[in-house]
């Protein structure tokens, strides 16, 4: 996870085209190693590339520079196309690496991983509790909303709508608070005294270190290429 972060930073700071290309390859390799369902990955990449599509539509027209071709009044510039291509490469490289390194983990594992990395337990617990109850709270909100809809509530831009949504949100807040109290009671009844104990705190295995080292190495390689590329006048 740490490695993924460094990898992203390095990639995001690249200016040349070559380095992100390598990064993209690294991301691809990681993805292959992670054995992910291709459809899921493609779906996520599609979402991301809808954003880059916007860049392709705007940047070539707006970035000033040498003209690549002219379409009537529109001038498509070389630097614009290059920039759009660069952004696309970078985005995909980062997304691939993140999908492979982080998104494959269940949040429970990420929490345990953070605990193993000596992140304060309060932070880990905050993360895990948020994850545990966000669905419960969402369900509660939807139950209320459905109840309102079933009684003929139609959202519109009226005071009545705003007041109703205010009530729904307020009600969800109150219910969340009450649930929080009940959970705290449940914890106290089972001997909770403000200290979290980690069950067999997941040790960082040798394979974890090796994987991190490899990803960091890849990041370093990308950085090196970038430096060489730009000093060479890129």
């Amino acid at each position, binding site marked *: 996870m740490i490695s993924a972060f460094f990898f992203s930073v390095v990639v995001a700071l690249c200016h040349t085209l070559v380095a992100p290309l390598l990064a993209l390859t690294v991301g691809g390799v990681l993805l292959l190693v992670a054995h992910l369902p291709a459809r899921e990955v493609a779906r996520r990449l599609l979402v991301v590339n809808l954003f880059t599509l916007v860049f392709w539509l705007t940047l070539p027209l707006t970035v000033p520079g040498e003209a690549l071709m002219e379409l009537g009044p529109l001038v498509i510039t070389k630097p614009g196309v290059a920039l759009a291509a660069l952004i696309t490469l970078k985005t995909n490289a980062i997304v691939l690496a993140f999908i492979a390194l982080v998104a494959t983990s*269940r*949040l*429970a594992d990420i*929490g345990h991983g953070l605990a193993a990395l000596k992140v304060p337990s309060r932070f880990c617990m905050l993360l*895990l*509790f948020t*994850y*545990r*109850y966000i*669905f*419960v709270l969402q369900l509660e909100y939807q139950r209320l909303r459905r109840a309102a809809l079933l009684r003929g509530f139609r959202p519109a831009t009226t005071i009545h709508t705003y007041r109703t949504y205010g009530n729904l949100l307020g009600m969800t807040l109150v219910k969340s608070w009450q*649930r929080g109290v*009940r*959970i705290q*009671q*449940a*914890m*106290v*009844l*089972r*001997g*909770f*005294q403000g200290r979290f*104990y*980690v*069950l*067999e*705190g997941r040790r960082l295995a040798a394979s974890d270190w090796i994987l991190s080292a490899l990803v960091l190495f890849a990041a370093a390689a990308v950085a090196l290429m970038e430096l060489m590329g730009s000093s060479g006048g890129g």
Partner: protein
Amino acid sequence: MTTIFLDDISFRHPGGVRLFHHLDLTIGSERVGLIGANGTGKTTLFHIIMGLLKPESGQVLLDGRGVVDAKAWQQLRRQVGFLFQDADDQLFSPTVLEDVAFGPLNMGDDGPAARAKAMATLDGLGLADFENRITHQLSGGEKKLVALATILVMAPDILLLDEPTNNLDPATRERLVSILNDLNLPMVIISHDLDFLAKTTEVIYSLEHGHLHRSDSIHLHSHPHAHVYGDHPHDHGG
């Protein structure tokens, strides 16, 4: 044998009506069913027993001694297991194993010991391969059984169960009946499910107007119920 005695308890919620008026109750030798209309304070009574709410007057005694300070409450909570109405309130850890091990860890067990206890408890409830399941992805019935495991792993002497059969399908309900009957522990079960109480308890208390009324025999099937599956009749016990 652990005995809890509620001595002359009176209670009202702030700004609410009086729920209990000089109420006495002994828990520890029997399996008790607790019935009563909504809002009569059945759950509140459990909260007073566990020390989550403080009575206006009167006190809770554990083995004859008044439970007064934090240490005494901790001792009582160690000996009495309270199963909540909503299992979602009780299962807060990411995985089943962690949730069941939470109590033993707080009691001072180290990792391997807590793990062993948790696995043994899950095994005893027929949940042997559940340890790595994600708690919020369990079904309602599974959540209820896992919540029961988180209580049983602390080896309580007395159980308090708050409407344990709510939203359970008939198969899980029957499973719960046999689990509870195998436990051989004194318990108090709040329920509106008289058939369930008849199968699991020896005596029924009904809570009315702040007083408890005891009845040693309840009339089996005095309530109307639908026989939906005509080709699967059940025994009315004569």
